[in-house]
C-alpha cells in the first residue's frame, strides 16, 4: 500500500506527514486570481452560450470536466511543494538503544532469534541500515535491561539481562545525550517491559525536549504455540498445616481445548495436581487449586505445567512463590455468655492443632466465670472479659458466643470493633439465643463490624429452624470450606452433613461481604450459615448456628469434618493478623545485585503507630553472614520505616527486625527474601506492539518492524530535532496529477463521442 502511494504521489506518506505544503510560484496571489478568472470565465461563457444538439446537462458535464482540468493545470503551474526539515549529515547524534534482556534470545523472528536481528542490523559490517544511519548521523549505542549503559559495539552484548526497563533506558539515553544536537532515539526491543512502572514520566521528558523515539519491534506479537502460568496469588505467611486455595492464572495460544496438569510443588515435592482445561485463545483461565502447607519454615512453592509439544517458551510454564510457614501458636480468645456444647467440641476439634491456642472464658452464672487458660492462669481474665486494649489486643482472634450486647460496656463494644479495624484481628460471632439481633447487637459498634445486616432491635420471636447447609459458589473454592482433597469432592461432602439448628434469622450480607455457607429447611430459605468481610485491617465472620457439634456427634466416628472445619475456620480468621512490629521486603525475590527493599511498621501494645524510634534490621545471608541495617522512619507515613540492602550472595536471606523505644525492646519480626535469577523475562515476552507504538506516537517518532525498518534512516532524517536545513520538494510532477489530467481530458472526449457532439 505504501509503495502504491509512493508511486502515485512521488513520496512516501511520512514525507507528507513531516512536510508543510505550500506553493512556490513567483506570482502573487492577485496575479493568480486574475489568471484563474481569465481562464474560467470565458470557459463558462463559451459553454453556456453554445447551442446545437447539446442539452443543458451535456453543457454542465463538459464545462465541469474542462474546469477541473484547467484547475489541475493551474495547481501545477503554481508549483506546489513540501517544505521539510532535514538533518545536516554528520551534524546530529542518534541514540540507538538495544534491548539486552534474555527475552531477546527467543527465536520467534522467522526462525531466527530477536538478538540475531540486532546483530544483523548493527553488528555486521555490510549492514545497509547501519551504513545509512552512520552516513547521516553520529551514532551512540546503548544497551539496556534493568539499567542502561553506553557501548561501542553491539557485538559485545550477551542478552543476559533479567529485567526490561524501557522508561529507565529512555531517560538515561536522553540525559546522556542532553548536551548534543539529538535527532532522535532508536529503540530496538521486544517491548516486554516487566517493571510495572509507568512510562508517563520518561515520555514527558522526551516530549519536552522534542526527541522523537523510533521504535523497532522485534519478535511476534503472539506466539503460535505457548502455555503460560501468568500469575499466582499466595499469602506471604501461613500457619503450619494450613489449607490454602491459590488462584493460578493460565493463558495459552495454539492449544485451545487441551487439558493439562497443573502441579503444585513444595520445595520440589508434589503436593497437589489438578487438571486444567486450557481457555480459548486470548482468554485467561483462573484456576483455584487447594493444597496444604505441611512443612515449617520458608518454603518455595512451585506451580507448573509440564512443557507441551511445540512450545516456543517453556520457562513461562512455572511460577514460584515464597511462603513462610509459621510454626508458632496464635492466640484466640473464645468468650461465651453461657456454658454451651460448642465450647467443648470446639476445643476438642482444635486440641491437636499445635498452632492454635484457644483461651476460654465463659460465664457460668451472673458475674461468675470459668476460665481455661494456657499461660499465667492466676493473672488473666480474672474479672471477666478484657477491659483494656492491651489485654484484648494480645489475641489474634476473638470468638464471641452467646453473650448479650448489654453484658459489655460501651467501651468494651468499641474495643471489640477496634480489635478488628485497628489491631487487624479476626472476629467470629457464633449463633445463639444471646447473639446477633437476639442479643441486642443491632445498632452497636459490633453491628458495623459484622458482615451481615442486623435489622431492628427486636428478634423474630422464637425463631427456631433446622437447616441443611450447602456451600455457595464462593464457598466451593474457599480455604475454610475445603473438606476434601479436590474442590469437587469437597462440594459433594457438604451435601451429606447433618442439619444444624439456628435461632438467629439472618438473610442479608452487607455489600462487599461474602457468603460461604447457606442453609435451607422447612419454611426457611436463604439462611446465612457462614459469611465474612474485611473490616479495616482485620476481618469478621459470622456463623449463626448453635450446634455445629452435630457434625461431630451425628457423623461416623472416623469422619473428621467437624475438626477440619473448625481448624480451617479459626486458622483463616487469624491468618494475616499483624504483629506489633512487621517487616517485609517489597518483592519476595530479587535478582542478584539488586537491592532488597525493606518496609517495616512499628506499633505499640495498643496498636498505635510509633514514629521516630530505633528500628534495626539484621540480614542473615545463606552463608551465615550478618549485616545490620538501620531502618528510618519515612516521615510521610506514621509508623513506617524503610531501608535498602544490597545482598552479596544468592540464596535465601533472613531479615529480622527489632524495634526499641527509649532503649527498651518493643517487639520483633522476621521475614525472608530470595536472591535468585528471576524468570520474569519469559513472562509476557511477546512483542508488545501497543507499548512501542505508544512510545513512538507520543514522542513524534514512528513504529517499525523488521519488514519496514529499511526506511528508518531516511525517515529519521526528516526531523526538526538537532541541526537541520530546510528543503523544498516539488509536487507538480507527481504522477497522480498527470494521470488525473489524462483522465479528465479523456472523459470529456469520450462523453462528446457518446453524445455525438464531436
Amino acid at each position, binding site marked *: 500500500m505504501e509503495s502504491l502511494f509512493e508511486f502515485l504521489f512521488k513520496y512516501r506518506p511520512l514525507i507528507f506527514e513531516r512536510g508543510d505544503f505550500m506553493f512556490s510560484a513567483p506570482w502573487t496571489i492577485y496575479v493568480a486570481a486574475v489568471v484563474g478568472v481569465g481562464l474560467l470565465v470565458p470557459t463558462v461563457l463559451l459553454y453556456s452560450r453554445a447551442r446545437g444538439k447539446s442539452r443543458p446537462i451535456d453543457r454542465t458535464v463538459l464545462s465541469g470536466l474542462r474546469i477541473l482540468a484547467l484547475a489541475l493545470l493551474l495547481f501545477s503551474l503554481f508549483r506546489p511543494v513540501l517544505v521539510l526539515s532535514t538533518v545536516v549529515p554528520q551534524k546530529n547524534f542518534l541514540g540507538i538503544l538495544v534491548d539486552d534482556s534474555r527475552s531477546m534470545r527467543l527465536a520467534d523472528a522467522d526462525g531466527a532469534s530477536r538478538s540475531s536481528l540486532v546483530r544483523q542490523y548493527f553488528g555486521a559490517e555490510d549492514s545497509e541500515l547501519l551504513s545509512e544511519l552512520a552516513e547521516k548521523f553520529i551514532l551512540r549505542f546503548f544497551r539496556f535491561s534493568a539499567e542502561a549503559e553506553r557501548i561501542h559495539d553491539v557485538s559485545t552484548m550477551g542478552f543476559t539481562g533479567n529485567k526490561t526497563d524501557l522508561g529507565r533506558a529512555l531517560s538515561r539515553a536522553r540525559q546522556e545525550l542532553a548536551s548534543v544536537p539529538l535527532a532522535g532515539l532508536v529503540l530496538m526491543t521486544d517491548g516486554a517491559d516487566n517493571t510495572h512502572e509507568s512510562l508517563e514520566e520518561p515520555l514527558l521528558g522526551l516530549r519536552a525536549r522534542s526527541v522523537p523515539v523510533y521504535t523497532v519491534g522485534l519478535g511476534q506479537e503472539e506466539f503460535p504455540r505457548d502455555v503460560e502460568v501468568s500469575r499466582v496469588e499466595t499469602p506471604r505467611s501461613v500457619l503450619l498445616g494450613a489449607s490454602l486455595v491459590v488462584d493460578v492464572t493460565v493463558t495459552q495460544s495454539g492449544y485451545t481445548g487441551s487439558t493439562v496438569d497443573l502441579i503444585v510443588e513444595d520445595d520440589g515435592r508434589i503436593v497437589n495436581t489438578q487438571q486444567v482445561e486450557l481457555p480459548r485463545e486470548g482468554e485467561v483461565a483462573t484456576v483455584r487449586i487447594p493444597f496444604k502447607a505441611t512443612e515449617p519454615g520458608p518454603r518455595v512453592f512451585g506451580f507448573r505445567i509440564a512443557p507441551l509439544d511445540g512450545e516456543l517458551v517453556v520457562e513461562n510454564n512455572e511460577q514460584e512463590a515464597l511462603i513462610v510457614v509459621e510454626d508458632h501458636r496464635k492466640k484466640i480468645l473464645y468468650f461465651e455468655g453461657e456454658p454451651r456444647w460448642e465450647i*467443648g467440641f470446639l476445643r476438642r476439634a482444635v486440641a491437636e492443632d499445635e498452632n492454635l491456642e484457644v483461651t476460654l472464658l465463659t460465664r*457460668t452464672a451472673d458475674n461468675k466465670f470459668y476460665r481455661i487458660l494456657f499461660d499465667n492462669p492466676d493473672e488473666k481474665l480474672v474479672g471477666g472479659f478484657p477491659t483494656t486494649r492491651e489485654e484484648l489486643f494480645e489475641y489474634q482472634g476473638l470468638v464471641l458466643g452467646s453473650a448479650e450486647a448489654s453484658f459489655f460496656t460501651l467501651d468494651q463494644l468499641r474495643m471489640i470493633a477496634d480489635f478488628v479495624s485497628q489491631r487487624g484481628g479476626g472476629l467470629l460471632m457464633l449463633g445463639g439465643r444471646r447473639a446477633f439481633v437476639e442479643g441486642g447487637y443491632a445498632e452497636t459498634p459490633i453491628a458495623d463490624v459484622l458482615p451481615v445486616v442486623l435489622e431492628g432491635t427486636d428478634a423474630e420471636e422464637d425463631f427456631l429452624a433446622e437447616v441443611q447447609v450447602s456451600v455457595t459458589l464462593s464457598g466451593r473454592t474457599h480455604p475454610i470450606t475445603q473438606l476434601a482433597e479436590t474442590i469437587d469432592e469437597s462440594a459433594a461432602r457438604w451435601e451429606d452433613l447433618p442439619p444444624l439448628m439456628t435461632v438467629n434469622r439472618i438473610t442479608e450480607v452487607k455489600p462487599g461481604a461474602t457468603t460461604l455457607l447457606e442453609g435451607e429447611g422447612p419454611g426457611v430459605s436463604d439462611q446465612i450459615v457462614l459469611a465474612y468481610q474485611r473490616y479495616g485491617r482485620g476481618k469478621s465472620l459470622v456463623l449463626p448456628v448453635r450446634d455445629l457439634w452435630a457434625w461431630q456427634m451425628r457423623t461416623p*466416628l472416623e469422619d473428621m469434618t467437624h475438626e477440619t472445619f473448625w481448624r480451617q475456620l479459626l486458622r483463616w480468621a487469624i491468618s494475616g493478623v499483624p504483629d506489633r512490629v512487621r517487616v517485609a521486603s517489597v518483592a519476595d525475590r530479587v535478582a542478584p545485585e539488586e537491592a532488597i527493599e525493606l518496609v517495616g511498621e512499628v506499633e505499640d501494645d495498643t496498636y498505635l503507630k510509633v514514629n521516630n524510634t530505633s528500628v534495626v534490621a539484621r540480614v542473615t545471608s545463606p552463608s551465615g553472614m550478618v549485616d545490620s541495617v538501620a531502618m528510618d522512619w519515612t516521615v510521610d507515613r506514621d509508623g513506617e520505616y524503610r531501608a535498602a540492602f544490597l545482598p552479596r550472595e544468592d540464596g535465601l536471606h533472613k531479615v529480622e527486625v527489632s524495634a526499641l523505644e527509649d532503649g527498651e525492646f518493643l517487639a520483633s519480626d522476621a521475614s525472608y527474601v530470595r536472591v535468585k535469577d528471576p524468570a520474569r523475562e519469559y513472562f509476557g515476552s511477546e512483542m508488545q506492539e501497543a507499548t512501542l507504538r505508544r512510545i513512538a506516537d507520543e514522542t513524534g517518532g514512528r513504529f517499525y518492524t523488521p519488514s519496514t525498518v529499511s526506511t528508518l534512516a531516511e525517515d529519521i532524517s526528516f526531523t526538526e530535532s538537532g541541526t537541520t536545513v530546510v528543503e523544498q520538494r516539488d509536487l507538480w510532477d507527481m504522477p497522480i496529477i498527470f494521470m488525473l489530467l489524462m483522465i479528465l481530458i479523456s472523459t470529456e472526449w469520450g462523453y462528446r463521442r457518446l453524445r455525438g457532439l464531436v
Partner: protein
Amino acid sequence: MRLIRPTFPVFLVSCLAVSQFGDPGTALQTPDPSADFALSFAEARNGGPSDPAFPTVRRQWGCRGPHHGVAEDSLGKYEFYFTRTIYSGYRRGCSWSVDYPRADRIFLHGLRRMTVIDAYDMENPVRLDDPELLRFPFIYALEVGAMGLTPSEEEGLRNYLLAGGFLFVDDFWGTYEWLNFEREISRVLPEYAVREIPLDHPVFRTVYDVDSIVQVPNLGNGRSGWRTHESDGYVPHVRGIFDDNDRLMVAVHWNTDLGDAWEWADDPYYPLKYSNYAWQVAINFIVYAMTH
C-alpha cells in the same frame, strides 16, 4: 477456679421456696409453669399425661413417669437437655426410671436458677439404642447395678461416648452393684479402664469448689439420719473413664444418691447439706462436660 464464692445454701433455699410457693414478683428466672414436679401418683404410674406435642418413647410397662421425649417445638431450642437413659436391666427393666421424673425436673429447676445454662426444664428419656441419643451430649443413668445392656444398647452407648457424649452415673451401691456396672461398661468400652477422679481434678473446680466427696443418702436414710450408706457401700467414690486425650467420658458416682438429694430437696426432713452438695457436684460435672 471459683471467682466469687456464692452463698449457696441461702440461694438454694430461696430458689426452692420460690418454686414451691410461687413468687410472681421475683426478679429471678422463673420456671416454666408446665414444670410440675408434683406429679400425681396416677400420672406416675400410668406413664404421665398423654400429649400429642411430645414424641412418645417406647413404653416399658410398670416403669415410672411419662414416656415421652422433648416436645417437638423445643427440640434444638435449648442448649442443655437433662437426658435420662432408658436401658435394659434386671428389675423388670425399670431401674432407669427411679426418681423419674421428679428428680429431673427439680434438678433442672435448680440448674436454671443457679447457672446461666440454657436448659430445657422437662425430663427427656431416651433409649441407648435410639439414634436420637446423639442429639443430646449429656446423659444420666442411675441404679446401674441392675443394668443389663442389649448388644444394640452397647453399640449405641459406645458410639455415643466415642463421638463426644458424656455419661453421668449415679445411685448404685455396694460391691455387687459395682461389679455389675463394671462388667456392663467394660463391654461398652473394653479398651478403657475406670479410675478414681482425684479431688484436684479440674472437674471439682469448674463452678463450685468441691473439696471432699460426700456420701449422699437416699430419702429414708437422709430423713432418719440413721446412716448414709447402703449395702456395703460405706465409702463414696467418684470415678471416671477417660479417652485417649484424657477427656472424661464417663463420670461414675458410686455409693451415693445424688438423685434423691435433688428430688427431695424440698422435703423439710431431708438435710439440705446433701442437696447443696448434689447440685454443686452435678453442676460442676455438667459445665465440665460442656467445656471439655
